[in-house]
């Protein structure tokens, strides 16, 4: 399964009220193309901060917070795992779209091929974490993840090859922040 397909499946399983933090680069662009929603915060830049932004949301909002992360991204902000595991927000769901490489920059191999991200999450204190291999059925794996108690991390293997690049999100960063905050705090 490609990363874009996995992003689309994940978004199709979420409810309207769920809040999404989409990682910088391809993951945000694919999330926008698959299903744009005001309750998705699209990142461009600040690599490694998906878990931290999601944690700030999880500590201040009652809704389910879903972080769509990449493996290189998670490795860059590995301390974010410790913060999520230490605080243990029950409403935080962390999906790692794991292609084992830095696909956007040319497919250079990442250490996620050697490092067990699910075991790291459990060690940090996540309530539930699993690795789903490329041959596994994606949808049931995601359903188990979303049915588990949080914080829960699913390390999902996806294809490393980049095909069918999604265009950039056609909003300024200021518009993205303003829209997401307004959607969350509207009364």
């Amino acid at each position: 399964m490609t990363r874009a397909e996995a992003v689309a499946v994940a978004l199709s399983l979420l409810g309207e009220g769920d809040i999404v933090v989409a990682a910088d680069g391809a993951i945000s662009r694919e999330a926008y193309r698959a299903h744009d929603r005001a309750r998705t915060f699209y990142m461009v830049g600040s690599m490694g901060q998906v878990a931290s932004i999601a944690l700030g949301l999880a500590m201040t909002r009652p809704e389910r917070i879903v972080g769509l992360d990449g493996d290189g991204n998670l490795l860059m902000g590995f301390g974010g795992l410790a913060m999520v595991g230490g605080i243990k927000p029950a409403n935080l769901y962390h999906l790692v779209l794991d292609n084992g490489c830095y696909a956007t920059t040319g497919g250079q191999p990442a250490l996620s091929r050697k490092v067990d991200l699910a075991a790291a999450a459990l060690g940090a204190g996540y309530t539930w974490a699993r690795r789903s291999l490329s041959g596994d059925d994606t949808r049931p794996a995601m359903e188990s993840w979303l049915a588990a108690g949080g914080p829960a991390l699913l390390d999902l293997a996806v294809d490393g090859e980049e095909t069918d690049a999604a265009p950039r999100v056609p909003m300024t960063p200021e518009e993205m922040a303003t829209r997401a905050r307004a959607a969350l705090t509207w009364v």
Partner: protein
Amino acid sequence: MSASRRLDALLEAGVGFVAGVPCSYLKKLFAGCAELPAGYYLPAVREDHAVAACAGAWLGGRRALAAMQNSGLGYCLEVLTSLHLMYRIPLPLVVSDRGAPTDFEEHRILGQSTRRLLDLFGIPWREARPGSHEAESRWLIEASERERTPAVLLVGKEADV
């Protein structure tokens, strides 16, 4: 009333979330943070994660404050520039003012460059005074929200009230 008059003033000014990494110059402030109810204080593992979590808390509707040693600004630069400055996310920061010639040498290089660093990125800053914590807290919140930018209050050891 918490262990820190400065924290009390910041809460009075509307702060509803704090994330940070401690500095010995900010002992009182962090002692106050430790007493906050669950969900209000995040003991971050590094300063870039603290400011990123503050961005999340702001998206969630809170006034979010980051607190750290000035050395932590180095770790924060990527997030301050490509998250807070680029998205225009307000971020009040309380930053210890280390690096005086009498301070330990590990604080001198970044400490003595802190003001120039903030000026370089157009981040407004002010130096704290021991008796002015209430007015400074209001300035910090207003400065960060008016322009939707990071704004820094530099706090020396004597101003950790």
